[in-house]
């Protein structure tokens, strides 16, 4: 880690967003992760995304569990709400927070250990419920904090720094999310911010569970020859299928997109995602097709990235439950609580 804080001095022509803030205003403390960690690039991408979306810092909640990845929320939006929860329990804590105040924007940052091993039960149920959040997995295939053992996302045949290659099937968060009915599924790479930033913006604005699985190399324990999650390997087998442009509500969509190449998807808040297919065969609105395609490419050793699946029609958890529009945290006790008589009436209904 660095001994000095990032100097407050800035580029004089640094852009300001509609709130008059610069990207510097969305920073946190200087990272204590290893120099060159992919997670730091993901942090920078998140900063860019929340800046671009003009999110007021006090309307953002940063949620995490345990692990290198889960330290990330300390490194951005230091003026926002944050909760660094128990290992693997970030989805539950976020569920609770979201139920209490549906007006905040929730961004959960987790890792392959936090989400696919200890927290896999929490992860899958948050998806099932279509909890309205942006869920980022910083996926590096190893447990960095405990010195580089393989995690549940390590590919078969991937070599560790020392010892034998992995022989167990990996859990692919993207396929898992698709099978559970996630409504926004994306994969990207920490080394490609041009792709990653719009994907995070779309995920933050999407209503429902939005998964962004980010290959984020562990520069210390998993960036060597033979690793399938290194910078070099990811770049070599990177397969880009759908590009994404995020268009805020006020702006008009350029009509220049050709049919079949570009596909506008309007989100609930009036903003639009414009999907541009890099691979013409791919259909990001068909779960079955996405499955098939991902499996085929996976068998060829390719890493498929981009916005892989979107269904903006699925109702998020609050709507499924028929909750009121106002945040529960703002309701009077009398409104929230049925009272003794009311409770009696409800219980009597079961008699």
């Amino acid at each position, binding site marked *: *880690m*660095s*001994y*000095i804080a*990032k*100097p*407050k*001095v*800035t*580029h*004089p*022509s*640094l852009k300001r967003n509609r709130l008059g803030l610069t990207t*510097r205003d969305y920073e946190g403390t*200087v*990272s204590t992760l*290893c*120099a*060159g*960690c*992919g997670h*730091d*690039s993901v*942090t*920078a991408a998140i900063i860019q995304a929340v800046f671009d979306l003009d999110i007021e810092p006090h309307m953002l909640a940063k949620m995490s569990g345990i692990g290198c990845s889960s330290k990330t929320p300390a490194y951005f939006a230091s003026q926002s709400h944050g909760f660094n929860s128990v290992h693997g329990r970030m989805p539950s804590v976020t569920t609770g927070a979201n139920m209490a105040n549906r007006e905040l924007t929730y961004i959960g940052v987790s890792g392959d250990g936090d989400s696919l091993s200890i927290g896999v039960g929490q992860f899958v149920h948050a998806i099932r419920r279509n909890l309205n959040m942006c869920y980022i997995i910083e996926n590096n295939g190893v447990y960095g904090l405990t010195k580089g053992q393989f995690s549940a996302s390590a590919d078969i045949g991937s070599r560790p720094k020392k010892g034998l290659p992995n022989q167990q099937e990996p859990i692919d968060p993207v396929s898992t999310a698709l099978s559970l009915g996630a409504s926004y599924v994306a994969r990207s790479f*920490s*080394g490609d*911010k041009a792709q990653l930033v719009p994907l995070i913006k779309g995920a933050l604005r999407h209503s429902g569970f939005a998964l962004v699985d980010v290959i984020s*190399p562990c*520069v*210390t324990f998993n*960036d060597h020859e033979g690793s399938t999650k290194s*910078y*070099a390997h990811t*770049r070599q087998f990177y397969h880009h299928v759908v590009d994404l442009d995020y268009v805020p509500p006020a702006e008009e969509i350029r009509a220049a997109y050709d049919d079949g190449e570009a596909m506008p998807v309007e989100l609930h808040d009036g903003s639009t995602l414009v999907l541009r297919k890099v691979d013409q065969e791919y259909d990001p609105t068909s779960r079955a097709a996405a499955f098939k395609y991902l499996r085929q490419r996976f068998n060829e050793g390719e890493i498929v990235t981009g916005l892989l699946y979107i269904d903006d029609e699925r109702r998020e958890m609050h709507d499924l439950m028929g909750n009121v529009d106002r945040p529960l945290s703002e309701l009077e006790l009398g409104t929230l609580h049925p009272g003794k008589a009311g409770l009696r009436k409800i219980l009597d209904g079961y008699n």
Partner: protein
Amino acid sequence: MKPTDTANPDYYHKVVDCQWACPAHTDVPEYIRLIAQGRFSDAYMENRESNVFPGILGRVCDRPCEPACRRRRVEEKPVAICRLKRVAADHRDDITHRLPKAPQEKNGKKVALIGAGCASLTVANDLAPLGYEVTIFESLSTTGGLMRTNIPRFRLPPAVLDEEIGYILDMDVDLKLNHPIDSLKELLDDGGFDAVFVGTGAPRGKNLEIPGRYDSANIHIGIEWLESVAFEHIDSIGEKVLIIGVGNTAMDCCRTSLRLGAKDVKVMARKPRGFFKASDWELEDAEEENVEIVVNHSPRSFVIEEGRLTGMVFDVMEYEIDGQGRIDRGRAVDQVSIPCDDVILAIGQDNAFPWIERDIGIEFDDWDCPVVDETTMMCTREGVFFGGDSAFGPKNIIWAVAHGHEAAISIHKYCHGEDIRERLPRGMNLTSQKMGMHEWSFSNDYDPAGRRLMPHVDLKERFKNIDIEVELGFTAEQAQQEVERCLNCDIQTVFTAKLCIECDACIDICPTNCLTITHNGTETDLRTRLSAPAENTEQALYVSAGLPQTGRVMVKDEDLCVHCSLCAERCPTGAWDMQKSTILLPYAADEAEESRCKSGPSAA
């Protein structure tokens, strides 16, 4: 763009904006670091190597380094480079034992230097230690030239001049005072010198030929008047004084007038503010002393009543400024008369060479200046060299010093029959500053402190005597804070493309958005595609070789880098390193060393 050639010493030299802007290329960040460590004598010697007169220049240098200072681009005020130089001079110990000495055994070459000002003294400083027999001819009764006669004592005390000039004269220099050269031809023909250097300055003040000019004794020419004050031939002036012109000489004239009894001093400027020739800090100092600066007044005539100067008539001007901020047209809109007792003309100065015969092979241009080669400082007659104001018209002390160093090299080569155009090139050393994981051998943290203010003698006290030096020099605390403002621009961010894994860590951490990894393109194209637009085209773009994984390039906009080392700290592979660039400037002594090496051991 092609990969940047950082082996060319000029590339990193330009990044050190202050050193690049300094005509003598003083290693500013290095001496500031030495001050920070309390090594004042070392800081003084570091200065002296290039600028010869740290104590003098620490007070009165024209400071081309400060407008160039990178700090001005990230915040408003530059580092107080000049004032820190004075800190080194004020706090040094006795350094006489560290000065170059003239050898007992001379090399048999005789050099005449005409004028005992900064240019000639620099030549003497460079040549005397090599064994040259150096003679300085000075028409006045004292040394220093315009430094002594034109800069008032309350800005530059004579003791400072005497000490630093003394260091040079002590190198067996033969000083002939009260010895004007009336004929260069005679000196060349009969003097017995191997080379002659002319460092006589620009000693003639410009005149203003308007009605009434010769009808009163109370109309003075600025530099002549300042000289008379310096020699104590003049010790008083009228109550109401008008200074014509608004350059640095005008500033010295108005402030000197206040010390000789003037109560109401006005500096009359023809143009509006922003078009003045005086340095900002000299203007500030004059205005602090309640000198009134009157703009848009163009002199028309002197008012003489009963043989006495009573005032001056001015045209009140109006100017049209064009799109580039230049004056397009001016016209007189009114006429006013302003009463006064004395007028001082400070509207510029010219070279004057009545003592150089025009038939001895020295060519003069249309402005009656000698034709001098800018590299070698030699005029059209072999063996005759010029430097300082006498070479290319009025500049300043630091330029004269730079000329002196170059002339000394030429004189050395000329006296030894070498080609004076074949000079040693500049060199550069790069040294890593890494001490540990994230430790550097310099203070890399950015200190947001503002520029320290120079303490001055109280306004009530300072006019009591013309000898009272107004600037007191930085206190120890001030110096300690000011040194931390230096951005260490000489500690370069050195990039090794083949080590880069394109993890973006350096780009993400850079506080001033200097770095980008992108596809290569032309410079104009690249400048628009960076993390932040690179609009300052005077500052270079660094472009790396193709990166191993994607073939893209690392681009660094040098403009706003604060040299905080975070790119190198966050780099996992050591592709970025912080390395100090030391620019190696060749002097006459290096040329002498080079010839010795070339001629081999047999010549020794």
